[in-house]
């Protein structure tokens, strides 16, 4: 009997653990430099603006807008084969950073640059909480 391949899971570092723990608790958390206030993403040790290692975390507003997207058709990983095709949206957050997440409840034909989005969080079927995106309003 063949074992079902597992999806790739993050291996959190000291810097990124609060991000992943935040998702598990239902919140998208962003690093905020404790010295100069700059928000940065993806999580990393050092503020590139003021070079402070002191870091706090803030919850994202949940708003976003479309920067770009792609639709995945090719099965690069067997664990995602059953979900194909899926739309991956690159989203601008008003906090000044971006995230990439799968689009829910709409197809790529509904996307336009700048279209408003809402960030959600869902469990990926294997116990991992991940961000997802939905078109805002309607």
């Amino acid at each position: 009997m063949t074992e079902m391949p597992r999806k790739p899971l993050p291996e959190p570092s000291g810097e990124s653990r609060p991000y992943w723990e935040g998702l598990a608790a239902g919140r998208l958390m962003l690093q905020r430099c404790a010295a100069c206030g700059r928000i940065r993403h993806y999580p990393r040790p050092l503020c590139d603006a003021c070079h402070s290692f002191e870091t706090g975390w803030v919850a994202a507003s949940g708003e976003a807008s479309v920067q770009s997207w792609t639709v995945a058709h090719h099965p690069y990983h067997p664990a995602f084969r059953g979900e194909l095709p899926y739309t991956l949206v690159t989203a601008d957050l008003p906090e000044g950073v971006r995230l990439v997440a799968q689009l829910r409840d709409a197809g790529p034909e509904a996307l336009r640059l700048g279209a408003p989005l809402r960030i959600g969080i869902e469990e990926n079927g294997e116990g991992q909480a991940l961000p997802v995106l939905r078109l805002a309003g309607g």
Partner: protein
Amino acid sequence: MSLSGQAAVTGIGETDYRRDAGGRSVLRLQLEASLAAIADAGLAPREIDGIVLPMGTGGTVAEDFVTNLGIPDLRLSTTTPLGGAGAVAAVQCAVAAVAAGLCRHVLLPLGRTGRTGSRIGARIHQMPQFRTVGEFEAPVGALAPAQYYAPMARRHMELYGTTSRQLAEIAVTTRRHAILNGNASMTGPMTIEDHQASRLIADPLRLLDCSLESDGAAAVVVSAAEIARDAPRPRVLVTGVAEGHPDSPSAITQRPDLTRLGLAKAAPRAFAMAGVTPADIQVAEIYDCFTYIVLCQIEDLGFCAKGEGGAFVEGGALGLGGRLPVNTHGGLLSQSHMAGMNHVVELVRQLRGEAGAAQVEGASLGLVTGYGDLGDGTVAIMARG
């Protein structure tokens, strides 16, 4: 001190690209290409005194070459791990080394078993330059280069009206060139309709927008310019060379301008070093892991303004006799995916006048680019002389 004209590419060598390696190891392939390049330079293997290994494919190290080639006195050993930008980065490194007098003849071998060995999609997340996307993007299903690059192409399309048929022009022209080359993996003709009918991989990229997975090796020898006067082949000087890294090099997602590559920073430096402009370039070997990456580099090199690449490539502009002949060997799309070392080889061949049916008539000035990982860019401008 300017590096312009301080070094020449004196030797070029390649393996057969037409079939899989038949069980030959990566090191064996690299040694075959290296011996060919060393002989082409009119050198004996013992005269090699520098080795720059681009990319790190296959896990070979300089010691393997010392041992197998019988090199008695290696004076420089380094690597340029910039993915597909690594081959031209290795040229830059070799030029600097010979200009500084560290060594005289530098061997640049690149080879892989990308067809019969491990698939690239399964491999990249073991590479440290993909660590960030591996942690934050692979879990949501962004797993492979096509999926990381496709949003750049989509944004370009939405901003500037670039179309999939324009990307097809690049694939079709490149295939036409491969058919002229006696050593290309893909030898059947391709039409724009073939491209449009090929299956989607990561929208807007279709199968025929994607490069090959190949077995083989290519190598060049870079020598100090003065010594190169004695080389048997026409001398091809490196007159400009530069490397550039994009903003947010670890994650395309966070890049302020998704349509600007590291090459946009490197290109003005290389043109200034060479003392030429894009209008002077007669042939260009442009790294073509995906069709869109060619289009974006044409803009970032300054052949046209940002957003005009789609119109630029239309109507056979990149073909022989077109306004900018590109990838006259068939590129990564249709010749072989030798991570751009085959592009370096082809530029030298063109500037020597040895490109056979694909020769750009009278070509004496050209350029070659590299594009690596998440947007690193390299460019070398070369001239016969």
